[in-house]
């Protein structure tokens, strides 16, 4: 920090501009990128629990039951069905299967609500209990 004016200039103008430029490049390239073309059947299969095994998706499970189901998914993908159509038909064809990602319903509402409640409670608690009621007498830049 040899030259204070040069330093200030750098901090005030050059640096923010450079940061903005880099950030803009990142944002633009990411928003214009093709959506990641992972195997669609694989992606759908990962959302469905293999009924014959514990907690594994049909895409991951080595069981033959899961292989059957994946085969059906692939078939429907090649037929060009939408994700939702595929899932609906799969559930109809294999009634014992379940989604691994629980849909939002009344019986699953708490699942989503509890973490949200924790977050809000935490924020409120921090805000009310620790809000600054003392006049900060000696505030310096750092300790």
């Amino acid at each position, binding site marked *: 920090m040899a030259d204070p004016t040069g330093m200030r200039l750098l*901090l005030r103008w050059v*640096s*923010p501009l*450079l*940061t903005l430029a*880099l*950030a803009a*490049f*990142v944002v633009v*390239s*990411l928003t214009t*990128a*093709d959506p*990641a073309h*992972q*195997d669609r*059947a*694989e992606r759908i299969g*990962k*959302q469905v*629990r293999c009924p014959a095994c*514990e*907690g*594994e*998706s049909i*895409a*991951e*499970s*080595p069981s*033959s039951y899961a*292989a059957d189901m*994946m085969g059906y998914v692939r078939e429907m993908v090649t037929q060009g069905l939408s994700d939702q159509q595929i899932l609906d038909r799969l559930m109809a064809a294999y009634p014992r299967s*379940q*989604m*691994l*990602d*629980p849909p939002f319903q009344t*019986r*699953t509402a*708490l*699942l989503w609500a*509890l*973490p949200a409640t*924790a*977050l809000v409670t*935490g*924020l409120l608690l*921090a805000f009310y209990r*620790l*809000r*600054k*009621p*003392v006049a*900060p007498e000696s*505030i*310096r*830049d*750092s*300790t």
Partner: protein
Amino acid sequence: MLSLAGTLAVWTALVASGWLAVAGWQAARNPFADSRSIAALRRSLLVMVLAALGAMIILEAALLANDFTVSYVANHHSRHTPFPFNIATAWAALEGSIVLWGLVLAGYAYAVWRRATAGGTGPDSLDWGALAVIGAVGVFFFGLMVTVANPFEVCTEAAARSCTASSALPFSRAVGPPDGLGPNPLLQNHLLMAIHPPLLYLGYVGLTVPFAYGLSALALRRSGPGWLRRSGLWTRVAWVFLTAGITLGAWWAYEVLGWGGYWAWDPVENASFMPWLVATAFLHSSLVQERRGMLEAWNFVLVIGAFSLTILGTFLTRSGVIASVHSFTQSAIGPALLGFLVVVTVGSFALFAARSQQISSPPRLESPSSREGGFLLNNLLLTVYAMVVLTGTLYPLALEAFTGSEVGVGRPFFDRMAVPISFALLLAMGIGPALPWRVARARVVWSRVHLPLQVALAAGVLVIIAATRVGYVVMAVIAGSWVVAVAAARLWSQARRAARPKGANAWSMIPAVIRSDRGFWGGQLAHAGVALAAVAIACTANLSQTLDRVEMAPGDRVEFAGYELVHTGVSTTRTPNRLKSSAHVEIWKNGRRVGLAEPALSQFETSALPIATPGIHHTLTQDLYLSLTRIDEQAITLRAATAPLQWVLWLGGLTCAAGGFYSLVGRKRRRSGAVRSPEGERAGG
């Protein structure tokens, strides 16, 4: 014979734990504890340690001597279990794992005693109180060993390969099967399996110690820095083991389980992750109390919470309520653990509530944009994270128990919740160390972070240009580099400041700066480990390519991810307890043979389903992961996947643990007298 010795050892440990609880409590209540009560405490402690060690040694001896009259040996061991898995069998099933738990607990009790009596200030009632709590916890676990989880029962009726009836009375007429079935086949496939459970136990059980100090402080009305410093130290110890244990556990799953992943949000993984999150929160919020006297009540909540979560995790995985790789057979241990969990949480929080008036009211936060504010954010995120994992793990159980309807909560749910929280944590990890205590002015913060921010963004740009435009990967690289760059910039500016008065080279001052505040820099190293892990997770989750189930006859070749895979044949090896069929798959790239992978399916005589062992071709940029779903002489069914930068995940996890270890070494030094510069955080940038 060994049953008798084992039973005696466990009963002795049980009695000694109870004695430790009583003697510890008596010594704690008397501020001038006389040498007689201290001597009683010491004696009970030594007996407990020796008896717990004895129980473990006897169990190992029974395994090594193939003494099938001991129920545990008959049910979980086989003459053909190879070394070192015959040793590891001691903790490969329920009863034995409780014996290990007891031994680790006794070990911690001894370490607490050593630490308390070796320090310069001398031990005080807080230490005695904590030992009393550890003794009480010991009563529960050794109590399990003599009742519902007794490994030393005498086998009284034997079938060909197992023990069909056993008795807890050591003088019953012993009958042993000629051989046993051996441990769960999954558990005798890889060396990591022998290592990662003991590490995790050192982590779990270690969290008993901060809990014990917290309870001791509450019971003795001794809030303040005393319990906090001790709890902080022991949480670090447990945390290092827990971090290493979780990492090695994930590594084991990847190398052995053959489904291509390392983390499935399986209940047992969650059971280790929740205490880790809460312990991590405590490590950070304890700094705020140490420094500013704030958040003491919250710190009590965290140490109680972390311990309760370890018991909850043990209940979930050991009681059979959730079936998984890790849950052992169903037994009466479930209700016992559930009861203990209720006693621990209700009892501790009742004590906390009763004492809450006496916990010093904290000075208020001057500004949310300050180091304290950063720690608050960190704690909020980590707690919500733990809450998400807890809810997701328990919800299906609770729903089924109360309404009977089944719902699956799996990977997609956890991923969706965990990804944003993890990114928020990474960003907080980057900004936090750059914030001064009390009040952070925007100008000061900007001067500390603008360069790291540009470095991080530049790293993102580089990845976009050179490698990939997948959003999660780019964002993980940016967030990760930001964390590392902020720490590096702090280090550099402090080294320069230290060098200036001496006219020295700033580079040469770096070791001294780091040594002056090992706690802080160990923490930064742990942050860097998390950053590495985040990048690796983003890469493996988003850039992996997969090939699903191709049928290959010998001689067939298949193109995949720039490789050519050639199936050249099948070989089978038979060992006494399993038939292992391996496929030989040559890996070619650009017309050159780069490797040979041998994915296999093993048929153990004890289990109907074959166990898949992957064949992994490791390279610096990615792993090629091959596994089988079917194999015979005519054909194999092969699955293949790439795992980009997989090794970086293991590096990150172990770096994280190493950071914790380094900060631990630093604390030791400080307590034995060396002067520590206050945080090394003087003056702005």
